């Protein structure tokens, strides 16, 4: 693999990882804001509307960083992966362009109305715009998953002798069986992220004894939605993804589990450091037979290890793949435990007084971001050495005409710009969180609000 290709992989991985931190929050947050807005309309209590406004402010700043860091990704297909784009563009870009046409236009139009138009256009329009923003963000996720699903599990194509991939069946691409489990898994991951974020900030407010009423609402909503999403994350979505990988990408399965040798009744590695050179796991803790059960739902089923496949077909970074997968699964397990315990305490009406549990909720808030990124590393590193699984090797997908020096230049530039964006984001979220939710009357004197509604009518 040439230097230019490796640098392009680094650049894509870096820009994508950084970008995904933001939609991971906004997709889930859009749902939670919609719930708050719905509660307001049902209960007619300004408290819920103020909460929705507060989260809309955080949503807006997260969304904008997500947008500006998302645009480069579509461009990078062409700039850094031009041979892949030329070979597969007419398939992969159908779903990418559909994202623009069916999701981005909805999001941008209704986010404008949601953020700027509440007083002018009234509550029903405002609720509807929140609904459309939620729909748009989830649809956007769906189209991206459809594109990624095709790279993981290409369908509906024909290949010319020259290596170009032509679309032969549009509906096969759109109804790729890979999409549903991966979409569900990604979305529930995002809802977990937003729920932990909301509950974590709520816990902070209770610990700091500020905005206590809001803190209780944020914890309650975060914990209820978070537990549901954490469970969906493991079953059915995680389970279905696992079965799919076992069926179509057995090499990825073996590498991510650290299974070097084919076994009947394979055990699952909980912890340990893999050594691909010797094919062993150091300091391993292994539970016997569990991998066979999880993969085939039979305790003694045979699971193929890496030794069943030629090394040229192995992912090129087995160790990172293994750790990414184990970090994701490990964190996912903690998430269920934290949320289940919190909900139990909430139900017993003891959560808000238990400061140690509030501390756990606060400290847990950043971890779903790590789990989301680790999950993407699992699926993407496990796809290697292919850019389109089984059809086009990654080394033959990069731009042959772009030299390593130029990619290094832009990679460094991205690193600098994103460092600043990241700092800026943290500063702004801390600023908003410190300011806290404020009822509208404090910000706008009633006379001013009166004047506007008269002008509008």
């Amino acid at each position, binding site marked *: 693999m040439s230097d230019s290709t490796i640098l392009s992989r680094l650049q894509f991985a870096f820009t994508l990882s950084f970008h995904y931190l933001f939609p991971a929050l906004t997709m889930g947050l859009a749902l939670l804001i919609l719930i708050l807005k719905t509660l307001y309309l049902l209960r007619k209590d300004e408290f819920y509307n103020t909460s929705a406004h507060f989260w*809309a402010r955080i949503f*807006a*700043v997260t969304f*904008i960083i997500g*947008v*500006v860091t998302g*645009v*480069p990704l*579509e*461009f990078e*297909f*062409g*700039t850094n992966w*031009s*041979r892949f*784009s*030329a*070979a597969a*563009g*007419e398939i*992969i*870009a*159908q779903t*990418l*362009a*559909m*994202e*623009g*046409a069916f999701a*981005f*236009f*909805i999001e*941008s*139009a209704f*986010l*404008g*109305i949601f*953020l*700027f*138009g*509440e*007083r*002018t*256009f009234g509550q029903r329009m405002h609720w509807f715009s929140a609904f459309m923003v939620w729909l748009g963000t989830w649809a956007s996720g769906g189209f991206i998953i459809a594109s990624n699903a095709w790279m993981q599990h290409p369908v509906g194509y024909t290949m010319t002798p020259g290596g170009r991939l*032509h*679309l*032969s069946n*549009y509906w096969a691409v759109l109804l790729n069986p890979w999409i549903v489990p991966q979409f569900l898994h990604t979305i529930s991951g995002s809802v977990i992220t937003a729920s932990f974020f909301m509950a974590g900030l709520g816990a902070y407010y209770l610990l700091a004894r500020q905005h206590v009423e809001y803190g209780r609402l944020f914890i309650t909503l975060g914990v209820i939605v978070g537990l549901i999403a954490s469970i969906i994350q493991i079953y059915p979505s995680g389970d279905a993804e696992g079965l799919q990988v076992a069926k179509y990408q057995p090499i990825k399965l073996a590498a991510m589990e650290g299974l070097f040798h084919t076994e009947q009744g394979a055990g699952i590695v909980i912890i340990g450091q893999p050594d691909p050179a010797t094919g062993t796991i150091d300091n391993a803790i292994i539970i016997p037979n569990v991998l066979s059960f999880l993969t085939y739902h039979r305790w003694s089923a045979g699971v193929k290890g890496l030794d069943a496949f030629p090394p040229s077909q192995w992912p090129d970074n087995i160790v990172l793949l293994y750790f990414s997968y184990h970090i994701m699964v490990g964190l996912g397990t903690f998430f269920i435990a934290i949320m289940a315990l919190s909900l139990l305490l909430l139900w017993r009406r003891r959560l808000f007084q238990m400061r140690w549990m509030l501390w756990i909720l606060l400290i847990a808030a950043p971890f779903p971001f790590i789990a989301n990124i680790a999950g993407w590393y699992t699926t993407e590193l496990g796809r290697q050495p292919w850019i389109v699984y089984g059809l086009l090797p990654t080394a033959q997908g990069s*731009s*042959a*005409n*772009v030299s390593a020096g130029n990619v290094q230049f*832009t990679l460094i530039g991205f690193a600098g*710009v994103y460092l600043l*964006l990241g700092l*800026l984001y943290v500063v*702004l979220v801390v*600023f908003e969180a410190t300011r806290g939710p404020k009822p509208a009357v404090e910000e*706008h004197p009633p006379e001013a609000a009166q*004047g506007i509604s008269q002008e509008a009518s």
Partner: protein
Amino acid sequence: MQTLWFILVALMLTTYILLDGFDLGAGVIHLFAARNDQERRTILRAIGPVWDGNEVWLIAAGGTLFFTFPILYASSFSGFYLPLIIVLWLLMVRGVAVELRSRVQNPVWASFWDGMFFLGSALLAIFFGAALGNVIRGVPLDSSGTFFQALWTDFNPYSANPGILDWYTILIGLLALTALTAHGANYIAVKTLNAVNARARRISRLAWLATIVLAIPATIVTFSVQPLVSASFFSRPWGVIFPLIALGGLIGMGYFNFRQRDMPAFLSSGAFILGLLTSSAFSLYPDVLPAVKPANSLTIYNASASQYAQTVGLVWWLIGIVLASIYFIITYRLFRGKIRPADTEEGY
């Protein structure tokens, strides 16, 4: 089918420049048209609800180009590697500046982002113009259909190995800057009252004069740099309609500015940009990316996707574009009218 997609993609890119063009122009003029925080907020409020949607046209046009002409997408994006990535950085700086400026009540913070908003907007306008200049002039494609252009080489548009920037593409870049400045000033004039409105009109007039000064040499040189241009107008004389639209727009810009009618002036600057871009597309057709050696040019035939991909794409694209147009009409209708001081209070 390839011709249809050529027209549709060209129209999507034109729509992008028409829409994002006015908010880029607003960024260029806001330092001069708005003197205090309240006035700056007024300008930001004028584009706040719409600029993000305008930018979506770039993403949508990019995606559509990608699946309809994948060879062109791959070749041009990798060949224009450096300027494209720089455009991405500028889009980021500018987007962040618009959204974050008013979040912290601090004059230094606001001034910093005002500066970034100006710089990002002005440089983007110049880069977009230079990009158009490159496509018209032609790029050093080899026989495999790829190329890589340095940011600059010898600044000579007639060179066998031209850079992104030469005196012709810089000229087109400056023309884009003045045209989009006028377009943005006209939009701000439509959306504002009193002092800001008056200053926007004055800037629009100056930008209009500068546009005329630049458009005359740019037009003459274009015929000399790219022989396809005159060939196209001779073989298909009806295409003269496109430059006439541009000319009409240019006249209208000055006339309506003089008569102080902001909306017709804004539509005129739109017509001018529309005319320029459609003239360019018309004169290159059926090439999509002319090469310095004409035999290596990418055309709608050798750069396109399969017939099937283009046909199924058309079905969902039509549905998508109708929906998008409906959202746009709703948004622009909802936010129509002048920005009043109280409006700048709303929004998060």
